[in-house]
């Protein structure tokens, strides 16, 4: 009990009560600085293949020779197929797959996103592992159109050639599924969701038909993205795309295997986040890290592989970039070797990391190294929330409150006589006294703001695409006016007290802190980015009213220019507050990445309604309410008393 007794005496210490803002600021500074030390050699690690069974690059690859002739023919064939209509295309693709000797099926799907119908059909073929027992399968994917919307001529032709080549081997311990989705987002999503369900329910936004042919549990998926026309084009590097929906990542072993096979066995350089020239310097590592954090925090699909990751199917996309001397056969051999490695797996990929930040194709920081950054940021809100809670429980004793500014700096503490039994002591008089907390109004306000957050969430994800920018403008205008209006209403109508404002802020920050801490374990980057953007909310205190006291440090100057100073502080706070508002940040992002606002909103709506991306939920239902409550506190003028 000694510790608790000591803590109990400590909790009345004035130092402890003044510490939280500094502690909070320290958390934020350390949290942000933490990310900057990750690229250093001491805080990141070289990647390594953890699963012994994979044996990357240990097999001799035979893909080559006359297969090149077949590849050229398939590429021409794909080009010819691209010239015909949609239905003819499906039939032609099915025909090619059937000639290769696969079991062929097609899956039509339809999604309704932002008032628009997206229709398409996936074609896929199943290569039964001759000696496999149908319990496991791996997916070789070549989307008809890649993520940028180009027709994936060479990627598809290569996948077809590989399927024909794989058919001759009897070594496969898993079935191989050759999947040709119509596009790179909806198609894979429709296919993988139907693969894991009996008869998918038809809803207003999705109508996905079930798959007539299935194999066993999917072990891994590899997508090829090589959108080069019928006459070919050589490439320089393989860009490995690995981000899944909501920042979920495939097992690091799959990525490592791809890198090990490509660079170690085939001599093809690998890049991450299209960092084509990576000198492995601090600066380049930091750029890669930043790109990774931005991509992960967006939570959107980055390629055809993304849809697989939420289903616990490790998936990557191999995308060819640059212009140098590697040809399609090198990519083919890489894929062959990669599939041989996956085929070696005895268990589902589980050995290596699922949470990592890549700094280079062969360097990473593991969760233990980077998680504290987001946790500290989330912690800063909790610290402030606790401090506000403690403060709200102690109301200043009337006599000690000095109205009209502090005139004397060296005030002697008032003393009083305390008697316990026979002992008599002179102790400093308490400047505060415990008070009952009135929590109904603050809780109601916080709850109401959170409920209100579903309005922007709904309208920005469900309206027709042409109204989306208007909806964001409306949301921006409402958001900016809402805090001031609400605080006026609260002070005028409900006579909200200073204590209630503190409790309200405390509730809101507590929610924000815990939400972000929990989110950090799922999607580190999103929690980190939202944490940084929301960090000023820890320091929001009511703006001083016209009669409020000025800090004594300002001294004489402060007294003379009181009005000017107050206006300046108020203006600065309001500008900073507005700048960190969710809608303004969205506009800023669009401006920075020079993207169309409508396009960004459409992407977000797509992600939300088709793939279950929860980024907009975090923005509107976690960050936005905290921001509004902060604003209410800011403009409340300190409340009554």
């Amino acid at each position: 009990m000694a510790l608790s007794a000591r803590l109990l005496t400590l909790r009345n210490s004035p130092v402890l009560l003044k510490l939280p803002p500094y502690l909070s600021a320290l958390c934020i500074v350390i949290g942000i600085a933490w990310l900057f030390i990750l690229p250093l050699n001491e805080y990141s690690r070289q990647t390594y293949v953890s699963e012994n069974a994979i044996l990357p690059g240990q097999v001799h690859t035979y893909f080559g020779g006359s297969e090149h002739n077949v590849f050229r023919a398939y590429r021409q064939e794909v080009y010819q197929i691209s010239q015909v209509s949609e239905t003819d295309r499906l039939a032609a693709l099915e025909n090619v797959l059937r000639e290769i000797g696969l079991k062929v099926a097609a899956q039509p799907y339809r999604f309704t996103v932002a008032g628009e119908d997206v229709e398409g059909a996936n074609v896929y073929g199943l290569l039964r592992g001759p000696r496999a027992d149908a319990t496991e399968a791996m997916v070789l994917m070549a989307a008809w159109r890649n993520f940028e919307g180009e027709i994936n001529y060479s990627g598809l032709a290569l996948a077809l050639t590989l399927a024909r080549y794989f058919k001759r081997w009897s070594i496969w311990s898993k079935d191989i599924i050759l999947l040709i989705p119509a596009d790179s987002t909806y198609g894979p999503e429709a296919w993988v969701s139907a693969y894991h369900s009996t008869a998918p329910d038809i809803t207003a936004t999705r109508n996905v038909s079930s798959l007539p042919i299935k194999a066993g549990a999917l072990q891994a998926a590899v997508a090829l993205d090589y959108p080069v026309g019928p006459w070919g084009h050589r490439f320089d590097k393989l860009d490995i795309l690995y981000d899944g929906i909501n920042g979920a990542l495939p097992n690091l072993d799959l990525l490592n295997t791809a890198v090990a096979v490509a660079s170690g066995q085939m001599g093809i350089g690998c890049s991450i986040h299209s960092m084509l020239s990576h000198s492995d310097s601090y600066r380049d590592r930091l750029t890669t890290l930043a790109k990774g954090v931005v991509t992960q925090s967006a939570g959107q699909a980055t390629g055809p592989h993304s849809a697989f990751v939420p289903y616990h199917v490790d998936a990557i996309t191999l995308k060819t970039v640059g212009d140098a001397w590697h040809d399609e056969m090198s990519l083919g051999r890489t894929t062959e070797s990669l599939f041989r490695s996956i085929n070696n797996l005895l268990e589902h990929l589980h050995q290596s990391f699922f949470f990592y930040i890549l700094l280079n194709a062969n360097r990473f920081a593991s969760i233990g190294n980077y998680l504290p950054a987001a946790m500290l940021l989330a912690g800063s809100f909790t610290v402030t929330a606790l401090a506000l809670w403690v403060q709200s429980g102690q109301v200043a004793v009337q006599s000690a409150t000095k109205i009209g500014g502090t005139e004397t700096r060296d005030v002697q503490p008032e003393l009083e006589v305390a008697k316990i039994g026979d002992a008599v002591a002179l102790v400093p008089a308490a400047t505060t006294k415990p008070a009952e907390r009135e929590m109904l109004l603050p809780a109601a306000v916080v709850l109401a703001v959170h409920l209100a957050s579903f309005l922007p969430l709904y309208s920005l994800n469900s309206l027709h695409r042409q109204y989306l920018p208007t909806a964001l403008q409306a949301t921006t205008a409402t958001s900016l006016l809402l805090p001031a209006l609400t605080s006026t209403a609260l002070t005028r109508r409900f006579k909200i007290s200073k204590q209630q404002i503190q409790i309200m802020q405390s509730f809101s920050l507590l929610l924000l802190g815990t939400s972000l801490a929990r989110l950090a374990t799922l999607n580190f980057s999103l929690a980190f980015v939202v944490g940084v953007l929301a960090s000023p909310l820890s320091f929001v205190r009511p703006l001083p009213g016209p009669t409020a006291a000025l800090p004594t440090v300002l001294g004489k100057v402060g007294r003379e220019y009181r009005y000017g100073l107050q206006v300046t502080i108020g203006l600065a706070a309001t500008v900073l507050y507005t700048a960190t508002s969710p809608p303004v940040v969205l506009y800023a992002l669009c401006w920075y990445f020079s993207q169309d606002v409508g396009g960004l909103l459409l992407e977000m709506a797509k992600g939300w309604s088709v793939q279950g991306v929860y980024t907009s939920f975090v923005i509107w239902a976690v960050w936005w309410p905290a921001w509004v409550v902060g604003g209410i506190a800011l403009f409340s003028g300190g409340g009554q008393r």
Partner: protein
Amino acid sequence: MKLAQLLALPATLISAVLAIPEYSEHLHLRPLPNGYLYAGFNFTASTSLSAYESQHFRYFPRSLGQILKHSGTRELHLRFALGRWDDESWGSRPRDGKREGGTGVEIWAWLDSGGGKPAVEERWSSLVNSLSGLFCASLNFIDGTKTTRPVLSFEPEGMHRGGGGGMELLHGTLPHEVVCTENLTPFLKLLPCKGKAGISSLLDGHKVFDANWQTMSIDVRPVCHVGEECRLEIQQTVDIVLDIERSMRPRNDPIPRPRPVEELECDESKSYHASDTCYPRRKEGEMAWSLSKIFGTPVRGSCHVADGDESHDISLEVSRDRAVEVLQGGSNETLVSHGQSQHVRAIRLSDTAKHTDISLPQQIIQEAPHQEQPPLYASRQITGFGQERGGMHTVLHNPHTYPQRIVYLESLPWFLRPYMHTLKVLSHPTTSHNQPATPVKPDKMFYTPALDRERGTHLELLLTIPAQSTVELTYDFDKAILRYTEYPPDANRGFDVAPAIIRVLPPNSNSTAGNEKTQDSYLRTTSLLLPLPTPDFSMPYNVIILTSTVIALGFGSIFNLLVRRFVLAEEVPRSAVAVRVAWVVGKVRGVVGGLKGRMRVGGEGGGGGGTVVGFGGAADVRGGMNGGSGGAEGRKER
């Protein structure tokens, strides 16, 4: 009616080999579409029951005979299987699926039921353990959790004394067992010629286990003929489907390298055809093959050991126009169609020739190969993802114009916990997609729920599949969490779930459709992989758990101290209930014991009234968190 048919079944099987010699062997060859070859080996040996009782064995394997006798086994069926039968392109299954097992090892046997359940289990255990040693398979892992007692799915094939009374059927599967050479060798050892002569000389592990589908079976049963002594018969079969192209690769270079450019067969009709661009041409016609190239060796000698064995050793089911050459000990002759059947050509191995080989050239045959449609198509999948719940989804498709009655048997491991109230059997016609699905009511249902770590689930349904329709059978299940010692070394692979066994019952004879079968047939789905919640058996996991616990403890107590308000015990207003309870307790005590002791109001009042109380007295907690350690002392620290 049905029973009569089933009793007639062994008789019909036997009639094929009437006037049975004590040992005979047979190989059936049939090319399948898309360059595959089916080869079915059958070895039948028998011994009279009196000889068996006196342990006098000639062609019947002694090692097996002794095991059967020791364990009181009346009829035994043992299966080793690998791969899948592709019934969409290969048609119906050989031997009606009766000599076929699910992936892995499957065993069912009728045992003497004397001595009650424990005695039967003892015999079963003794049987599987002995067979485990004999066949180098993990059969000894078939324990209570993997054993079921099917009711409708199996009928005894043999003729048993007393009409099949006094015996009990037990069935066990090992879906994860990988069948390989070590199982084939003891299998061949049971044969009189031990794989050295006759058709069994073709059975080489390299080829058998490179097959796309292979199943080995051993069936022991008593057979009786009128006016003869009953005999105990053992049938050993090996059915394989080989990829002709793959099997013909030379043994010293089995790697399917890309062919030289000159050997590519290109489709020259393509507009882009050029010297460096080659669209592969579709293969046409029947491939050329020969026994020696496919099996790596010709048939060595013959194995005509038993008296009266006059039957043909090899039969070849090919089109009438196909040229077939037989190379027997240096003489080369053309094999012609045999007897009443136009499609089957038979050959008897010469006892003098050292080698016999059959070869067929490449040929384009106009006539489409005769193929029988399978009675039913079945597939079974696990749906859902994640580690908590899943669903089973079985699709049964009846392509015929008449309804079929089937028995659907599932034996599930105990850690898969099905919810039978979610069992749905829906049927929808294949011909029109727009019609809504109609529920199918099972005619009969046998269900034995699982007991954790003791027995698995046994589910048997008697269903009628309407004509030309698809029946979907679904149910949901939970995945159990195992104890950490119960996980196998490859815990993250998942756990194998045994295939479902489907018995298609023969249609009633009064229905008039033409080419109906009079015997039942079997088919099995593929086995499944069930991912269970698996703990992370690694160090970081333990570190995370430990750190989180420490942080939670530290945070909890410090937070509690910070936000709790402490007041003196005297200041706590006593709750009315507590006062009342204390009063009652005091009264009772006064009445009962007449104790003069001081009433401990605080303690009892707290316990009864629900006021939060610290160790040193009463400390009311107001507006604070009521969690963590509530043991702070009730002193006012001021």
